[in-house]
């Protein structure tokens, strides 16, 4: 685990060095309050359960300008409370105005404004691409923490500013 964290930090440092692809920190001001906004949902079918709701078939959750799409999305809440956690499984895509994150599973915790994507994660920002096994992404600040999964490594392709 330490190795993955170190790898993530190294990647962040690497990004800072190349100076262009700001995976680690983007404009926090532009992203602020995304997690405070209501969640809009859409799907072919859904179900209200005692613990929240479940969406299936072209399921998507939109909050602000951020969009989460997956085969299945489940939102949970405490009884009589608002949605606190959103879990997406199967062909997960989380798209923001600046990044696109793909993975097998994603868990969005509203209280911490953090979405954790796991399973063959691909993070794309412009032409820059970063792959790994686990990605933690703060939707308000844009802070990204990529870690390798299993025996894999973090790999990335970065284009310095000004390059073609």
């Amino acid at each position, binding site marked *: 685990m330490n190795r993955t964290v170190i790898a993530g930090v190294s990647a962040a440092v690497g990004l800072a060095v190349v100076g262009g692809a700001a995976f680690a920190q983007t404009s926090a001001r532009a992203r602020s309050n995304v997690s405070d906004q209501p969640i809009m949902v859409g799907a072919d079918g859904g179900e*209200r359960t*005692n613990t929240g709701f479940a969406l299936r078939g072209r399921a998507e959750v939109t909050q602000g300008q951020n969009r989460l799409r997956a085969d299945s999305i489940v939102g949970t809440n405490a009884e*009589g409370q608002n949605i606190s956690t959103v879990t997406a499984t199967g062909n997960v895509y989380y798209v923001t105005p600046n990044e696109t994150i793909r993975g097998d599973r994603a868990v969005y915790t509203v209280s911490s404004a953090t979405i954790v994507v796991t399973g063959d994660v691909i993070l794309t920002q412009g032409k820059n691409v970063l792959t790994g096994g686990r990605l933690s992404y703060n939707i308000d600040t844009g802070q990204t923490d990529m870690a390798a999964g299993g025996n894999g490594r973090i790999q990335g392709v970065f284009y310095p500013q000004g390059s073609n």
Partner: protein
Amino acid sequence: MPEFGPEGVGQDQEAVETRRAEDEARLAQAAAKWRARSRRVQLYRRLLPILIVVLAGGAFTWTVFRTVISGVERKAAQSREVRLDNPMFHGQDAQGRSFLIGAAGAVRDPNTGHFRLNGPVLRLNLGGRKVTQMTADAGIYDEVKRTVTIGPNVRITDGGSGFTLTTPEAVVDTATGITTGNKGIEGHGPLGTISASSYAIYDQGERVTFNGSGDNKIRGVFNTTRSGG
């Protein structure tokens, strides 16, 4: 051989004529009787067919008349409407959960046997922790199919989630306890709002499913913990 004088001849001739006259009289009398009998026979030959036709027609007419009268009597007996004020039907679904179907008034339709409900109120999951209640302007209770179709202006208070759902029509299967509708539905509650093309309420309100139709997906806006509702 005796000989007769003129007087004896005259007497014989008179006797012959007398006998001849008597014969003619008998013959005339017999002929008259025969003619009278012939007339009666002719009369009977005319009257009997008419009598047969009249009797057969009468029998047929009576049969038809009784049939029509029986139908009218039966229909008249069936056409009596049954009106109920503030009726309440209590029942249980397949899982043994109690439900109640009430109305401000009910009229039994003599043609269909269905109850037309005015201002129906359905309460599902009676005895459970959270009761689901449905109200509408009108409804139909089919005792044979064990279904209640209510609408328009259906309002469902979902005890499980606190959602209030509005829809033009809801069909409640009292045998299974499942409520369905495919004329669109909108809901709002503590969680947020939702709209869908069709829906189904299972387990007496414990579980609600929504479905879109074609390109029309279900849509909703849910409040988050951070947004505070």
